[in-house]
């Protein structure tokens, strides 16, 4: 197979950089009050995010110039390593906000689940690329990749981190579908997924309360519904054009986690519907270019890898914005490129780097 060293998809580069810049500005704006409060330094989060962005861009540049085919050989090792980290975090991890999801290194924390997400995409692409003959078989084609994903989800749910688990399952379904899995198999997966969800709710009743809060947050405005209500207040007071950059009021300690999971609320408050919709359109463009890359990738592995990375980004955006706009039950997950978070940002940019390398080798 001829590997043409063409140009990267510059639309992906441009959209990623624009989103990254919006993210840096919004992290600073949203976190300034909480930073000043906690660390007496309004730039505490912004400085760190800038650092992570720098590291992420370096990783993106490296991956964009690193032939993705060479990753394939690493896939099993990478996924095993990520599983070891997931186990390690359960043993020595730090708890933040009720879930043991971080490995502390100095004053930084890294999130093994973010690493596991990308590692799984790589592994599933590797496995499914050669499974074209076996996809008809439930046991030999469908179950093995699913088993690997469920293993990761199982470990992550022990932290527990529902958001990452949902993203991993969503990404897995996207990749299985892309790889040609039968719809009946996916239907079976969906059905058992519902059962599993019911079981999870039965195990930890606070999850059902989250669902109730999503349906009617005003039932318990100071408890379960508080965060959603504060998010809606932010979006509502933003209106069409927003209060102006830096002028959010909900960030004055009303909205919890304004720089991470709920950064999109502050964005909507300061930049209005126009700002919020622009960000969604940019993600839409990114998804389009991602699937375009998948379509014209030189081989199945490249196609599935591109589709997996794009699918992961898309699923995460849909869940994050869905939660913030009270469209789906509350699930903690970051908004790619925008939310504060070192592991999330660097691994997302690494993923975009891989995507760019695939786009360079495009058949067109």
């Amino acid at each position: 197979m001829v590997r043409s060293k063409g140009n990267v998809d510059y639309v992906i580069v441009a959209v990623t950089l624009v989103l990254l810049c919006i993210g840096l500005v919004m992290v600073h704006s949203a976190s300034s009050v909480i930073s000043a409060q906690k660390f007496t330094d309004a730039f505490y989060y912004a400085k760190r995010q800038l650092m992570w962005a720098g590291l992420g861009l370096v990783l993106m540049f490296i991956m964009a110039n690193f032939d993705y085919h060479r990753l394939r050989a690493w896939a099993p090792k990478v996924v095993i390593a990520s599983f070891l980290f997931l186990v390690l975090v359960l043993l020595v991890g730090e708890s933040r906000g009720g879930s043991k999801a971080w490995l502390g290194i100095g004053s930084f924390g890294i999130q093994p689940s973010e690493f596991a997400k990308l590692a799984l995409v790589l592994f599933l692409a590797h496995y499914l690329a050669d499974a074209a003959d076996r996809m008809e078989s439930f046991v030999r084609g469908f179950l093995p990749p699913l088993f690997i994903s469920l293993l990761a989800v199982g470990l992550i749910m022990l932290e527990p981190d529902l958001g990452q688990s949902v993203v991993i399952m969503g990404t897995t379904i996207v990749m299985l579908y892309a790889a040609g899995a039968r719809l009946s198999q996916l239907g079976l997966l969906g059905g058992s997924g519902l059962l599993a969800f019911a079981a999870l709710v039965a195990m930890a009743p606070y999850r059902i309360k989250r669902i109730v809060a999503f349906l009617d947050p005003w039932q318990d405005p100071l408890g379960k519904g508080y965060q959603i209500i504060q998010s809606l207040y932010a979006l509502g007071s933003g209106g069409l054009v927003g209060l102006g950059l830096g002028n959010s009021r909900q960030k004055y300690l009303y909205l919890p986690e304004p720089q991470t999971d709920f950064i999109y609320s502050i964005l909507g408050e300061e930049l209005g519907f126009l700002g919020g919709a622009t960000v969604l359109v940019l993600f839409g463009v990114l998804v389009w270019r991602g699937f375009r890359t998948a379509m014209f990738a030189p081989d199945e592995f490249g196609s599935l890898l591109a589709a997996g990375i794009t699918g992961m980004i898309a699923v995460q955006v849909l869940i994050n914005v869905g939660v913030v706009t009270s469209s789906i039950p509350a699930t903690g997950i970051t908004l790619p490129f925008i939310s504060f978070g070192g592991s999330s940002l660097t691994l997302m940019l690494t993923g975009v780097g891989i995507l760019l390398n695939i786009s360079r080798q495009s058949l067109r």
Partner: protein
Amino acid sequence: MRVTRRTMRRRFVILLLCLLLAVGGLIGRLAYIQMGQSSWLKARAESSWERNIPVEGTRGTIYDDKGRELVYTASAPTVIAVPAQVKDKPGTAQALAGILQMPVADVLKLLQKKSLTVYISPKGRRVTEQQATQIRNLDRSGIYISEAGKRAYPLGSLAAQVLGITGAQNQGLTGVEKQYDDILQGQRGYISFYAKANGERMPATGEHYQPPTDGQDLQLTIDAQIQQFVEREVERAVAEYNPDRVTAIVEDPKTGNILAMANYPSFDPTHWQDYPSTTYNQNLAIWQTFEPGSTFKVVTLSAALQEKKVSLADRFYDPGYYEVAGRKVKCWKAGGHGSESFLNVVENSCNPGFIALGERLGKETLFSYIKKFGFGSKTGIDLPGEGNGILFKLNRVGPLELATTAFGQGVSVTPIQQVMAMGAIANGGMLMQPHVVQAILDHDTGQVVQQVKPQEVRRVIDADTAKQVRDALESVVARGSGGSAYQPGYRVAGKTGTAQVVVNGRYDPSHYIVSFMGMAPADNPRLVAYIAIDHPRPRNGAAVFGGVIAAPIVGRILGDSLQYLGVPTSNQGIPKKPKPLDPVKVEVPNLVGMTIGDARRTAIQSSAQLNAEVMGTGKYVIWQSPPGGTLVEPNSKVRLYLGDNPPKAN
């Protein structure tokens, strides 16, 4: 079937479309929230950011009948802190303490409170303009200057118990201040600002001032001048008789307007905290209930005349007692009044005569009149804390209860009930509802916002009966027991009352409530005046008798007030008896052989109005000086010598 790249590509397109559709759905959802629901979400968000510091409106002024200020609010700057916004608490406390001359620790404690706003009490309430300027110049975060008012009383303690008092939060606690609190209070205003969730001021946001609305003013029916006459008389009575309590009321019988209402003990409303709570919590004139005694005979008389059970010219023989259910109920006058007309019965306040009237009426009729006159239920005066009084339950009224009720014993009434009953007789038979507020005025323009109209309760007797009663009562003053209420030129009509007070289930022989209920001019009464003195203690041991103590006070109140109101004098009234030689000699009754109690009562209550001076000890009077039958001047002293046994032959 092998999965081909074509299948894969088709699925990419489907996935892309699905994901873009979802993104489009979220954009739609976002538009719904940020545009469709924006306004109410924004309003709710704003109210969650908003914090308010209250600013009090000026409490309404209370004027008297003629527009004289009785109480107004003097407004002054007040220091309020919002603790969450005070950055440098020790520094701010230090600075404030210096200006307000308060201990630094006290100020710091207030600044550390976990509440939205705190008043820097006590020195930060009502500071001088100079202090306020100094504090403004400090420019400390979280310190605000608001306005707060304090009640000022230009006429001092005048009508204190009618006006009532206000508390620290500018709220009415008693009297008119409480009854009309909603009207006087006005609407609070606010200084509004946006705060962070932890209460600190949100930066780069302004503050909004919602000015308060002042309360409305009240115009009372109380006339400060008449009130002053009444309070002067109450003070005189206190100085002279050292009583436990005194109550006085002046009413306009045509409207039910209360022109004056005073009590002793009273208090100074500026320093009410220094007085016992009973002085500012209780208005005796409407709260206290006691046996009225002879003043109540007016009710029996009115009922008997209205029911045509008697004519004032009818004759009656009083042997000194009246036999009721086998028991002899004594007249206050030993030996009785003998043969007399019913007019004389009224003049003499002759108990057997009134027992006879009670029997002629029967218990149902007498009690129905008592209730129609308003006894046993609240008058509905616009003041808080009114008493009901107590009547016998009709099914427990036997002949004895009927007899005592007819002359004013065994019932318990409030002063205001008696005044309103007398008012009905004065105005031609209509019971009015009393009130002390006549109008609500706009605080800024002084325009009348609402006028209180005279309120009729019910017709009790007809005009003709009322006139007969008034004539009889004028005669009481001119010729009978109420003589000392007589005011030349003003036709005073009235009735005395001397009631013993039950202490531990027995009538206490030394504890009387003396009262007088009067009106003038008798042909067309403009005023009804009432006074009750509880437990007078005359210094010279003089008689404790309504006609002696209470009647002249009401006479003076009526005389001064009518003159002040410009009511012309008249010479149509009944001339005072006897004319023209006054004072005249009176006959000393024979008291020898009586128990000391009877002798004292007879001496006091006889028209001779003698002062008894007791010599020696014992139960019976064995000798007296001067002896019975001697003619002396009224209020002379009669010495009673006591022994253990009654003298054998008399």
